[in-house]
């Protein structure tokens, strides 16, 4: 609960924040640091990690979660492992994931 509140406060404070990350470096880090292992190469999520694609979180909230994950399955990635700038780069890369095709336009999901 406290974590959720903290995230909300951080999110509110950072609404106007812009991302200054490098998408190229973010992609490299996303792969090198194994973010895809739980969240998928396209950030789609799965049994072991939440969906990252189309995240509504601002960078500061994203960073807060990575530093102190609410899920017991995710380890904390401290600055020694991924700096704030590196997290900003990963965040920038995540924001490039395209919007999914609407379900109504995918026949196999309407069978």
């Amino acid at each position, binding site marked *: 609960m406290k974590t959720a509140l903290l995230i909300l406060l951080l999110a509110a404070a950072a609404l106007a924040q812009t991302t200054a990350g490098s998408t190229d470096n973010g992609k490299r880090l996303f792969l*090198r*640091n*194994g973010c*895809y*292992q*739980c969240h*998928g*190469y*396209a*950030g*789609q*999520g*799965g*049994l*072991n*990690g939440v*969906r990252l*694609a*189309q995240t509504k979180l601002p960078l500061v909230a994203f960073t807060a979660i990575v530093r102190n994950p609410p899920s*017991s*399955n*995710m*380890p*904390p*990635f*401290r600055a*020694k*492992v991924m700096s704030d700038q590196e997290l900003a780069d990963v965040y920038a890369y995540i924001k490039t994931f395209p919007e*999914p*095709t*609407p*379900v109504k336009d*995918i026949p*196999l*999901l*309407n*069978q």
Partner: protein
Amino acid sequence: MPDSKKTAVDRRRFLRGAVTGAAALAAQATTAKAQEPVAPAAEKAVKSASESAPAFERPGSDFMVDVIKTLDIEYCAANPGTSFRGLHESVINYGGNTMPEFLTCLHEESSVAMAHGYAKIEGKPMMVMAHGTVGLQHASMAIYNAYADRVPLIVMLGNILDINYRRGSADWYHSVQDAAAMVRDYIKWDDTPVTLAHFAESTVRAYNIAMTPPFEPVVIVADGVLQEEPIREKNLRIPKLVVSAPPRGDSGAVAEAAKLLVDAENPVIVAGRLARTPHGIELLTELAETLQAGVRDQRLRMNFPSHHPLNIPAVGDPITPSLGDADVVLGLEAQELWSLTHKMTGLNKYGMEVTPTIRPGTKLISISAIELNHKSNYQDFGRYVEVDLNITGDAEATLPELIDAVKRLITADRKRAFEQRGMKIADANRKLHDRNRELAAVAWDASPVSTARLAAEVWNQIKNEDWSLVSNDRYPSYWNTRLWNFTKPYHYIGAQGAAGIGYGAPAAVGAALANRKHGRLTVNIQPDGDMNYAPGVLWTAAHHKIPLLTIMHNNRAYHQERMYIQMMAAKHDRGVERADIGTSFKDPFINYAMMAKTYGMYGDGPISDPKDLAPALRRAIEVVKKGEPALIDVVTQPR
């Protein structure tokens, strides 16, 4: 065991036809001095080997086959072993290689896992043969899986107990004083018969024990001497098999459970290894509909139709569903009740943190037969749970009485409340199904192929067939469970039991074998890590013409462990980029299509572009429909 004097004579007669040379004859003559009757050495010396061959006498292994044939056992899976060569020969010649038919396997772990998968489709045991030493050592992990998954199978071990019959160093290495000791912690019963009459009685007894819930593996040691020596015992008979009625829960406790369920505002049913027969689905459906209670299927058996309005779809892991909204939880052969009702931190940051996942005051009812078979050493029983009502008995066998008791207690008022509850659950479930489809659309066109896309593409090809999914749906994030319409008992068979890897490929072959005579299209979505434990089972599938569609879930890693190594590295502030070491399959990648072809079956791939998947599936299904196994290598997203 035959008396030593008699067996020594029998052994000498057996050798007489096979051994030539003065040294051998001298040794025999020395032995023969004390044992009558014997043929004069001079007479033996002038006879040729063919002239001195003894008249054919039925070996004990023929009688063993007679016993096995009374048990309606269709198959015997094994790779050959000297210690059971007599029984092997009797199965294929005396027994006509039918009931049981010998299945040529390439690893004992595969033999057992094949029997494991077969039993979960067919509902009865297959026989496995193995050396009592080295073969059983190979087989032991798979036996533990079957034990933890409560699956019946008959393991027949070869061994030579009498030192007088051990022919050389290999026989000594392959002999053991107490063969079953190695696995006794995770089987239900074993015996080492010393006569053929004893073998008959113990084998029939073993079958009955294996097939009395909780189902479990059993072991019979088929002594090598009993197998190979002629039948000497008089008036041999085979006892009639009597299959025991399953244990049912206490009637008073069942009535109390019914009252709790009828009075509850939001009861939730958690089904674990409930449905051990096709009737299990019908019974659970009747109970859920009578109560209009939501069902959370742990996906350890095919317990409940996946698209039933009362089936609460999996959002997270079905093994540990959310129960926070329940005021009464009914566990039916539920796996690890403690983990159902508690959550522990996964990372052990500052000691283990434990929080309950049910509301204070929630009543917990358990119906399970597992307490009838608790062992001490292996800890599969889980943590002690403070349940409010613990009913020891087979859940499927207990359900009819529980349903009747519930029906007797329902008033008109409760019925109206139930109907309203059922509508709310159905409405919530529709939204969850819609949510799952939306999640499946994310990464729809990604390469490697997403597990959701894979599930949808396969479903599109098989939905109008009589299909059977025989792989653990956990690894592809339960996307098949979320998108397919599971209704029939053979539509799903659960997982490996003890989470022992190496189960998937052979269990799928065994399940496909059971499905073959029913003409079903068997589908195995096969993790790559599991495949590499004993891929020779692909040859067994090709050799025995077992139709099976294997689709590789090729994430090129022991992926679960890769995530754990990453978790440890991050926790220790050491960077996570080296988590691939020891966990991934790269440099080089493994080509599973080529592997399949090498083992003599159809192979296609690797496929990384989802657009190539549908045509590949069509081609492979054509092969399978012709009665052959086929494999498609699909390079996938991790989970």
